[in-house]
């Protein structure tokens, strides 16, 4: 189990409003895989986002489901603030985001 494998799991967690996974949206800032654990650092699209809790719980649940027995730690940070420039290019074109 390594960072790309974790990222693949996180691609199953969608932002329910935009229909885009958290990795493509650029919400995942860091993935760390120490022995026996997975640490993910992420943000939300806006501060006090009503859907933020759903995304964080979704990430936590997906990792626990994919890697049973491992210690999962999901940290939410405010800085740097998320910006639409963090969405990957393909997704921006698909969503017709300018």
């Amino acid at each position, binding site marked *: 189990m390594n960072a790309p494998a974790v990222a693949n799991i996180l691609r*199953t967690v969608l932002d329910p409003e935009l229909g885009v996974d958290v990795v493509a949206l650029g919400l995942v800032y860091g993935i760390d895989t120490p022995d026996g654990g997975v640490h993910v650092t992420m943000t939300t*699209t*806006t501060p006090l986002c009503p859907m933020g809790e759903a995304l964080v*719980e*979704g990430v936590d649940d997906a990792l626990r489901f994919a890697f049973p027995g491992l210690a999962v730690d999901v940290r939410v940070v405010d800085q740097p603030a998320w910006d639409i420039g963090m969405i990957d290019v393909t997704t921006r074109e698909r969503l017709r985001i300018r």
Partner: protein
Amino acid sequence: MNTAPARAQPANSPPMWLVLPFFLAAPFGLIAGGVLLQRVGFETFVAINARGTVAVTHALVLGWVSTVMMGACYQLGPVVLGGEPWSQRLVRAHFLLHVLAVALFVWSMAWFNVMWVGIAGSLLYCSIVMFVVNVSRPLWRRQVMSIPRAYLLCSTASLAAAATVGLTFAGNLEHHWFPTTPGRLAAHAHLGLVGWLGLTIMGVSYQLVPMFNVASRVKPRLAMPALIVTCVTLVAFALVMSFDPGREVRVGLALALMLGPLLWAVDQWRLLAGRAKRRMDIHGRATTVSLLFLVLTVVLGAGVAWGTPFGNEDQPARWPLAYAIAGVAGWAGTAILANSYKIVPFLVWYHRYRPLMGRQPVPVIHDIYSERLATAVLILHSIATSFAIAGALAGNLEWLQRGGLLMALGAAVHFLSMALMLAGKSSSRRHQAATRRVPI
């Protein structure tokens, strides 16, 4: 294979059936308002406090707009304002009392039963106190001041003030303590329309419009000036209007009062124009229509403050009626429609599909509702409101009544749309397939 959810209940969100009843009951307030508008007579053009007008206004304000707003406050409060647990028992008791009191109040005003107006008014006041107490908890405890929190603090205070003045009016019908003058009615109406409905919509929009339209690069600049101007002028308006001032003072107060919502509208327009998402969904379209109705409300409000424009002295209530319909059904009602098509699908998604995310394909919010039905509701409601406004302005009872009928029809389609969301029968195949996997 159906995988069991990891958590039966997400941490901060209230149970779905605590909040949904508010959204399901609200369309019946709009249906009642529309049906009652369809039954009004010519007296509605003569006196703004004609019993039919008062019944329609309260069905729309309390039965439709306020019911959705209260449900939205219970849903968004714990998430946006800080995760404090609500008293769920108090929420349920409040819902039952609110529905009973509004129905009784509208019925007693429509048939003008003074004793029941007093009883229903008292019950309504109790339900509003329950709501204010319940939402005040996270509002006051939250340490960080945010724009929605500042607006909601002021809007709940306005609701309490409007309800207190309203209860006094209800008692005054029986006991004749003081004359119910147009200025005093205007003070009560504006504490409700601008203070409660307006400030709540304005505050929540600062959170939801940038989020739903991906407008993270546009920063709202006028949020606090709009709030301060609105609150200061509203207090001045309510106090001065209670003494029925002359035309110059009235016009001055009206111009000052419309400044805050206009500043807010400029900010919202900037957010919508600077959105990253090119395609505007139902929320964006309904918000745009709502802003246009706000502009119309402001124009009509200036006319009302001036007096009886265009020589309709024998029917002085025509402009105030048009103004009230534009403000309540147009601005507030359309904003409520916009937010309903985000909050209800999100509730359904959050409680039904979120626990399955990462384990199996789940629908997204757009799949939960039918875009066609939502658009049909928006069109019907906009046409109905425009008809009613035109009917009131022209003194044409037939147009006004047809507007009411269309309004009721739009509300029925809106309820159907909500019911289909819950049943998992929206137009989206992805939602229907997911519903088959997750029994309701």
